[in-house]
């Protein structure tokens, strides 16, 4: 066994094993997005998800639904039918009737005017 063979066996093979293990370890996480950590800024556009308007029985007015109160004129980037980003015109509706859903959408526009839902309940939490 000369020097070249010894190098190949005692350095090359361990190095190859290490490289293979490193690739197997690091590759699955290479395209993963950074995980949310509490306290970090959230600089994404607001998103509003709504359930699929499927054939629910009972009193659900689902079949006539358009997007959940998206009044803007731009197309919604829908994934399936349940994901509607909030449009920019919606951000500054303080009273709700200035740039509200009457902004000229063809379908489902008039159905989602802000309407009082009686006494509201719910809860609030911080973390």
């Amino acid at each position, binding site marked *: 066994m000369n020097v070249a063979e010894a190098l190949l066996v005692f350095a090359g093979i361990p190095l190859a094993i290490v490289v293979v293990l490193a690739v197997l370890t690091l590759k699955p996480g*290479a*395209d993963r*997005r950074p*995980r*949310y*950590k*509490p*306290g970090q*800024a*959230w*600089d*994404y*556009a*607001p*998103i*509003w*998800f*709504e*359930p*699929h308007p*499927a054939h*629910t*029985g*009972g*009193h*659900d*007015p*689902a079949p*006539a*639904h358009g997007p*959940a*109160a998206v009044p803007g004129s731009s197309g919604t*980037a829908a*994934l*399936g039918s*349940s*994901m509607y*980003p*909030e449009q920019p015109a919606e951000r500054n*509706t303080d009273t*709700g009737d200035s740039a*509200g*859903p009457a902004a000229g959408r063809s379908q489902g526009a008039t*159905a*989602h*005017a*802000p*309407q*009082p*839902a*009686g*006494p*509201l*309940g*719910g*809860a*609030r*939490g*911080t*973390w």
Partner: protein
Amino acid sequence: MTRALEVDSHDTATATTGAARTDQGGSAADQVFSYKELARLDEALTMSSRETGLRFTLYVGELRTPTRAHAEELHARSGANPADAVLIAVSPGQRVVEVVTGASSARRLPDRACALAVLSMTSSFANGDLVGGIVNGLRQLSDQAGHPASLRH
């Protein structure tokens, strides 16, 4: 950095033409959550709405500062019949989650049940698990609201 191969759009962009749709940036659907997480959210929202007959919607984004007022305003616009709607508004930047129920959904989901769901959501959010917290909170809310007799068949 590795990037996913662009196989979704069949735009024929070359170096001399304009950019393909996916190279223009803009609104990728999986910018905030991955497709797997979006599918989990979608299923949780749809199944809990279908199970209970209420209409659960989920808002993820910044809320104006009185966050409660903004969440109630969003709730009023969350569908054709906001009395039946339940809005879960999560603002990760402000570390606030608001659950708003309408007049008739509040009968099925009392404030104490909402507070319990919010508590489990915030404990997940504090660990950095946004989607898991939302899915668990939705499960808790829909369990509490139950399955009304009019939906059984």
